[in-house]
């Protein structure tokens, strides 16, 4: 089971073992990470589950689809090349030691 490191804005890290196939946004909600709001419940429509993937690890996921790409324009914290909506990310076999950084703001 891949270990995923969630890095909070204050620099603290929470490391979790996450099942392959699990959604990153869902994992954050299940663990009560308040940094992820996910107002639309996972439809890539609210831009409130924004995360930064470690720059060296962005290729672990397929590129954002059009709906996500469009919505990333509206994230509350700066959009960077490694910005993703966590509702569109599914943990795969290669995700061991994945680092997911929470942005300062979602709204």
């Amino acid at each position: 089971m891949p270990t995923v490191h969630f890095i909070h804005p204050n620099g603290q890290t929470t490391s979790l073992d996450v099942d392959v196939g699990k959604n990153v946004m869902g994992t954050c909600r299940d663990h009560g990470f308040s940094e992820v709001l996910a107002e639309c419940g996972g439809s890539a429509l609210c831009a409130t589950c924004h995360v930064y993937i470690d720059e060296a690890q962005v290729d672990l996921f397929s590129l954002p689809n059009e709906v996500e790409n469009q919505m990333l324009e509206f994230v509350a914290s700066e959009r960077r090349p490694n910005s993703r909506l966590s509702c569109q990310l599914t943990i795969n076999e290669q995700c061991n030691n994945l680092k997911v950084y929470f942005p300062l703001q979602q709204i």
Partner: protein
Amino acid sequence: MTISPPNIPTSTIDPFSEEYILRPYAFHKELRQLGPVSYLSDLGVFVVTQYEYVKEVLNQPLVFCSGAGVGISNFKKNPPWRVPSLVLETDPPDHTRNRAIISKALSPIALRALKAQFEAEANLLIDRLLEKRNFDAVKDLAEAFPLKVFGDAIGITPNEREKAIVYGNMVFNGMGPKNELFMQAMSRADEINPWILNVCQRENLSQSGLGIQIYEAVGSGILTEMEATTLVRSFLSAGIDTTAHAISNAIYSFVSFPDQWIKLKANPQLSKSAFEETLRFESPFQTFFRTTTTNAKLGNYVIPENEKVMLSLGSANRDPLQWESPELFDISRITTGQLGFGTGIHGCVGQMLARAEVEALLQVMAKKVTTIRFNGEPKRLLHNTLRGFESLPIELI
């Protein structure tokens, strides 16, 4: 087509019959028990009712396409009654382009700016209704609220807005077979069709609304003027009576489950989850169709190419394999994954706007209203696609 495909279970249930429309849940159960897909022999269409498979179909838009219509009619065989929607009834890549234009207009930033207006209007409306005390919750509350706030947000003329309800009724009854409900809904088509296209014209939209923003895509050469008008029309067909039925269904559910109303009053912040639970419990959008573009595998079955597949969102949202005690309205339930707005590339693009509207209304009601009760017999709406009420006489104290 009268011969059922090999191995796929067959049923003679008619989802457009009055019995089914009024009391769908026992029929849903029967269909879910038949398996991932069954064939409705009287209509010649396939039906998917289990949560897992409804979701699977929605997430495979290239295999189960929308371009041949999302009602029972197959546009490849029968021409549609209106110019098809540029978002609802299209497939990628056109769909991707058009949806992006709408989602830009409905951006989270634009919505945040609208929230204060929704709250202010909700306060005014509820104050007025508390004074009136006895009224029809469908006309005076559930329809009145989105007609005002959504109409203003899009920026359409304040005149004759109730015609948008008539139009929505045409669009969604029009997704069913050509039965009496279809004919009845279409009876004013000659008057309503030109009206809706007229209010969606560039020169008839407010400069400060969301509708006019669609026309920016004409300036940049992405859309033609006519396409922009058709896209603005999508706001009006999709965003008014659907929201109205959701509000009626919420009120009906709260009166039917008074403990949930007490829960909401104690914590108005539950408005958000109350709306989600309403969409799960009494999904305003009961059904959508897709059309197979190939021999499409679902579970252990294969649906032949170019066949209509009915998706029962209402059934998926009450599938006991997905939901614990699905027949209970529970506003503190975790509703993530409810399919009331659909999901995938055709998931409701206006869902955040609808949420903002209804949450504002429920919050104001939770703060200002002590008691809601029926003061007459609720009358269910007979409708080919939507679930709601014809009238809902209530007393608000």
